[in-house]
């Protein structure tokens, strides 16, 4: 009877259904990164697939498939303008995988889909590497393995228990390999897929300039900006000014960093006290700036190697932050900076061209004889405090001259309105001023033991240069809305327009429970970040150094990895072989004898005893009778009698090893091929 063909055997309907659903499940998290056209095409194909499963006559034919392939390809091209690159390539992969679903006939087709599914799962980590996604895709991957096990499990329905057991065993066997590859697979400092085929233009979080409305967008953004863990007791909330960018240049609409400042040496503090040590884990922002507490107090060479402390104590990374960035910093809460240089002073006094007469007259009203710079600052703050200024997240739109309109007409706005216009007023009054963009505050996560700083904590404030005191922080927003500074984040009090999570009464039991849950979830996420995602080439080097293998150079890693993988696989193989192969040397010798005899056509039936076998061999091959009789006699002596020595076992092993039967000239007749 011909052996049934397992490769091209017809598939079962439940296999087709299961693999289709798995493809849909694998695509689900990818949907948000794909153009809607790609998702729509996949949905269309899935509908066709289910229709074909329900009514086999509806299975698309060759021409329909060809047309669908063309449509799918064009669809990808139209949606992404490209068939390569991260998004374009993935879209093409999804489209082609979907089309293969319409071609599921034999088990071979199912296997192909299952293997491509593996690729689809892997590709998704180019988009997102969160814990939730990893767990989800892990489950999909296990499902894929189960499908493959079922597809290879012989004809007929394999009992699901067996499939589950084999899948579980395979998954467990893969676990040590995963650990080895995770620890030792050579890592690249730059992402491999960033080959210049596309630009990552979308930045996350803060922009590099300030104009009325830019921070406001952030305040309704519910995402995490960074986590900070304090080594020393955490400062009070109103002291948590997280410094990001320092903006020197102002034009008609916006504040920006400016390029005119000479790249002087990094600033050092003249005096410092209340030092705070902390560690920040910044979420990927695709920007360069890092956030430190006001004001960073390390010596310039104490900062991490891939960062740079610029003018105005702005710490930046040398490369855009594409994955979570962890860095240590030390800041002084009480400080005094050096007096600004002449160049800085000049730069910090420039005013935009659209300064109006009423702005000038307003400032002129503050300047009295003998008024110090500090008096002018106080006067400016008083202006915001006493006039009818409102703090709102939804300020009215401003026209051609936003600064003037805000100061004299709308008078309602958010921190960037106050900070931006206050700095201009100070410059008009002759006080050097600059705007600082960053975050204010942070939500302590007691479960994780760190502070969470959200995008909604984004803030802008002003620094003024006062003679004898250096740069001093002034927060004009506090003059209007002190709660923004010393209370919860502004958005939390706004109600309408804020994301849903802020609308639950935060102090109520439900709010507390939700907050606790959120803290817990965030701690888990932070741990995932710390242990898995942050495991960079640097950590890897540290690991290799720890193993004392530094001097073996770059190849060491690859070498260790290959060795470890080989070792783990070898151990698994050994364990598998041990199950199959008896350990007892006597039995092993006998098995070898049986294998050698099987090679010349004398196969022992599993239910055939040694003496019967020896006699049968003797009858079929008289030339082997004596040798086999002696060997089997030895085997019986070793295996079944009480009185035998290890020497007998060794003799048996020697005899068997020396026994190499040649095939008979005339092959034994069918009568002899028992079993």
């Amino acid at each position: 009877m011909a052996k049934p063909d397992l490769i091209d055997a017809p598939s079962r309907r439940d296999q087709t259904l299961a693999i289709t659903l798995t493809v849909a499940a694998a695509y689900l998290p990818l949907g948000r990164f794909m153009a809607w056209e790609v998702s729509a095409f996949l949905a269309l194909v899935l509908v066709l697939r289910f229709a074909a499963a329900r009514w086999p006559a509806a299975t698309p034919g060759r021409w329909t498939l060809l047309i669908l392939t063309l449509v799918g390809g064009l669809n990808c091209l139209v949606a992404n303008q490209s068939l390569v690159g991260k998004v374009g390539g993935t879209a093409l992969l999804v489209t082609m995988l979907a089309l293969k679903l319409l071609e599921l006939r034999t088990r071979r087709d199912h296997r192909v889909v299952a293997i491509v599914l593996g690729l689809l799962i892997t590709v998704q980590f180019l988009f997102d590497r969160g814990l939730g996604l990893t767990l989800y895709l892990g489950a999909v991957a296990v499902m894929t393995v189960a499908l493959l096990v079922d597809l290879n499990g012989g004809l007929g329905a394999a009992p699901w228990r067996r499939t589950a057991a084999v899948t579980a065993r395979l998954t467990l066997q893969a676990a040590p390999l995963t650990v080895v590859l995770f620890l030792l697979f050579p890592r690249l400092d730059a992402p491999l897929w960033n080959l210049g085929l596309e630009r990552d233009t979308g930045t996350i979080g803060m922009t590099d300039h300030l104009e009325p409305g830019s921070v406001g967008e952030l305040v309704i953004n519910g995402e995490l900006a960074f986590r900070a863990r304090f080594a020393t007791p955490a400062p009070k909330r109103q002291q948590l000014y997280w410094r990001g960018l320092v903006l020197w240049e102002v034009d008609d609409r916006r504040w920006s960093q400016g390029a005119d400042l000479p790249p002087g040496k990094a600033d050092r503090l003249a005096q410092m006290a209340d030092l705070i040590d902390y560690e920040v884990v910044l979420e990927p922002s695709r920007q360069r700036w890092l956030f430190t507490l006001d004001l960073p107090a390390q010596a310039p060479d104490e900062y991490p190697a891939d960062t740079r402390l610029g003018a105005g104590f702005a710490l930046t990374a040398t490369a855009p932050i594409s994955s979570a960035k962890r860095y240590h910093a030390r800041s002084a809460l009480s400080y005094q900076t050096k007096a600004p240089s002449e160049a800085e002073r000049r730069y910090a006094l420039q005013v935009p061209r659209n300064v109006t007469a009423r702005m000038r007259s307003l400032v002129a009203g503050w300047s009295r004889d003998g008024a110090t710079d500090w008096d002018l600052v106080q006067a400016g703050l008083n202006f915001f405090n006493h006039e009818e200024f409102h703090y709102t997240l939804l300020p009215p739109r401003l026209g051609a001259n936003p600064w003037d309109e805000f100061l004299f007409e709308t008078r309602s706005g958010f921190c960037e309105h106050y900070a931006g216009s206050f700095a201009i007023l100070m410059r008009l009054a002759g006080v050097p001023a600059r705007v600082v963009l960053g975050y204010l505050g942070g939500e302590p996560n007691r479960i994780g033991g760190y502070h969470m700083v959200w995008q909604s904590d984004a803030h802008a404030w002003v620094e003024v240069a006062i003679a004898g005191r250096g740069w001093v922080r002034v927060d004009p927003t506090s003059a209007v809305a002190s709660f923004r500074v010393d209370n919860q984040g502004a958005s939390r009090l706004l109600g309408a327009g804020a994301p849903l999570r802020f609308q639950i009464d935060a102090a109520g039991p439900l709010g507390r429970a939700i907050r606790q849950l959120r803290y817990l979830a965030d701690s888990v996420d932070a741990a995932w970040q710390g242990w898995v995602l942050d495991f960079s080439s640097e950590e890897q080097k540290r690991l290799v150094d720890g193993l004392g293998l530094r001097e073996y150079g770059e190849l060491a890693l690859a070498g260790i990895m290959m060795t470890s993988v080989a070792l783990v696989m070898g151990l698994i193989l050994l364990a598998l072989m041990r199950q199959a192969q008896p350990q007892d040397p006597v039995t092993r010798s006998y098995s070898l004898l049986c294998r050698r005899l099987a090679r010349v056509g004398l196969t022992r039936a599993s239910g055939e005893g040694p003496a019967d076998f020896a006699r049968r061999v003797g009858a079929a091959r008289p030339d082997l009778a004596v040798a086999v009789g002696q060997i089997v006699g030895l085997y019986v002596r070793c295996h079944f009698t009480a009185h035998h020595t290890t020497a007998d076992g060794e003799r048996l092993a020697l005899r068997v090893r020396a026994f190499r039967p040649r095939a008979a000239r005339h092959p034994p007749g069918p009568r002899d091929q028992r079993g």
Partner: protein
Amino acid sequence: MKGSLPTTIHPDPPQANLTEQVLAAAGAIILGKEHALRLALACLLARGHLLIEDLPGVGKTTLAHLLARLLGLQYSRIQFTSDLLPADVIGVSVYERDNERFRFHPGPVFSQLVLADEINRATPKAQSALLEAMEERQVTVDGETRPLPDPFFVIATQNPSYQIGTYPLPESQLDRFLMRIRLGYPPAAQEKVLLAGEDRRAMVERQPAILTAADLARLQGLVSQVTATAPIIDYCLAILQFTRRSERFVHGLSPRAGVGLLRASKAWALLAGRTYVIPEDVQAVVPACCIHRLVGGDAAGRLDHDEVAALILAAVPVP
């Protein structure tokens, strides 16, 4: 498997002569049944009871009688009929007027070798009287326990149960027989000799004993000294496990069957002149030791002797 006797690998120990003599003498009277004779002798050496199942007239009774003569055992025969009473088997207490007391008159069961002829013709009540004695090796009459002689063997014969007027033995009682063998018709050549030759019964009557009681006791002792190494124990265990797992049987072999299987294998090994058991010994006794204890899963519940034995032996790998 039938008829494939294991090769003797080591030179025969002295006791082989005695057993070979017994087998040779038996083979001279019961022609063409060497394997069945060897099994019957192995059964007795393993201290087991023997059930011979076959059609009338194939020599069941002759075999039992012959074994008694050869082994030098005191012999009695009970013909089981449908009106047989337990007292007919065990014996009765009779009041003796002279002594003014009851005196026990032992029944035919108080013999070293009891032939229970056509055991399935008697009612279950009479059957159980004998079967209990077989297991306990003693009988209790009028509150007094009386030991049966030693050695004590029962050789029961049974007609195939599809014959009219039979009470088939229940499985629980079949389990008490170490072996069930079948004789079958003799091969044509041997049957010719049989027809031409002397009356077998007369030959049996003339046959002198070959073994003494002491010889038999010594041989039985030797059986328990035969080595069964761990692989053999595992093999027996695997056979038991297989019958318990297989869907072919309603229930598998009992632990008692396992003990019997190993002991019968040892006796078989001893008859082959070995002091250790090899897998072939186990295989040789499996058909006789196991099949009568198994109930088939098919509707009829009957199992074909040789087919089932071959199935079990092919399915269980030899160590």
